[in-house]
């Protein structure tokens, strides 16, 4: 039986477990994106960090304008498990629409395209993570907003702030080889889910 870890007490083991899961999930998501675009997509060296919420602006580029897709993660056993947050800088969101739609002038169309990409990325992420852990992990339909990177996510962070003053974030960047497209993928699990991952990975008896 494992006790509920609180995020501020997480150590290397918890962060490694999160990295392992994140790597597999985002790896699969990168493959899906690459197939969809017909271009090679590379994944940066991921980071897993514990961030004190008041210092989030040091970690998320707070005032950068992004197109952001947020999905909730639900695992069958524990219910709500956390969030996946994918952001596209303005330039990349335009470029993605140009590749997929041939033109980026209709903002509504661009928005739905980005949501659909977010949908595909989060589904791939959940598939791979679920397969690795032997669980059922489902993404909720995506929510979408275009604003300051921190303003898009603050409703989600508020949700997590009810339980803790800290969030744990797994973050990696997806980059297309010609540097025209980039996306930031963040996995923000709740503490229950990280404890569950640890148990499933056999890192805790």
């Amino acid at each position: 039986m494992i006790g509920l870890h609180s995020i501020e007490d997480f150590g290397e083991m918890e962060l490694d477990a999160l990295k392992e899961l994140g790597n597999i999930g985002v790896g699969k998501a990168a493959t899906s994106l690459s197939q969809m675009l017909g271009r090679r997509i590379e994944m940066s060296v991921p980071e897993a960090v514990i961030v004190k919420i008041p210092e989030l602006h040091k970690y998320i580029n707070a005032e950068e304008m992004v197109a952001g897709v947020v999905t909730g993660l639900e695992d069958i056993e524990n219910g709500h498990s956390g969030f996946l947050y994918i952001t596209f800088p303005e330039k990349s969101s335009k470029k993605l629409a140009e590749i997929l739609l041939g033109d980026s002038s209709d903002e509504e169309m661009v928005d739905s395209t980005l949501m659909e990409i977010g949908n595909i990325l989060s589904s791939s992420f959940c598939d791979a993570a679920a397969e690795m852990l032997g669980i059922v992990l489902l993404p909720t339909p995506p929510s979408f907003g275009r604003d300051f990177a921190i303003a898009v996510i603050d409703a989600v962070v508020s949700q997590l702030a009810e339980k803790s003053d800290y969030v744990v974030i797994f973050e990696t960047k997806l980059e297309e080889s010609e540097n025209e497209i980039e996306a930031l993928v963040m996995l923000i699990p709740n503490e229950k889910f990280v404890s569950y991952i640890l148990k499933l990975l056999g890192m805790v008896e």
Partner: protein
Amino acid sequence: MGSEILVGIGEFRVAKGAVLKTIGLGSCVGIALYDPKLRLGGLAHVMLPQSGNGTKRSAKYADHAVEMMTEAMERLGSDRKRIVAKMAGGAQIFKHMTMDMLRIGDRNAEAIRTILRDYGIRIVSEDLGGDEGRTVYFFTNDGRMLVKYSRGGELWI
């Protein structure tokens, strides 16, 4: 103009003369309290409308933030009767939203109005709601608040 002090998410700061700044308010609300006589002001970046039973005191909750900021100002010689409030934020950033719990901006704004009323603190101006993120600057030397919108444009309140 005084120096600039950054207020993080869920924090508050009180200052005399300095410019208090908080960035990237989405559903969160920036609450400023001001004592015009002492030219003393405070700014909080609140995330949640109401603390629960037995929760640790934290400025992330609107009720605690108002309480803590008022107390801090009183310690510096302020009188609650003189304190007035300004606030900005509480937007609905998501254009497409599937999770109802993310609709927190309106709840924040409503809760803060009630709390301030209970404290007898008058709201002199506000810029709440809408669908745009905000960065706010609160000038504690004269009580003005500058709201900058994510898509450009600004407003003095």
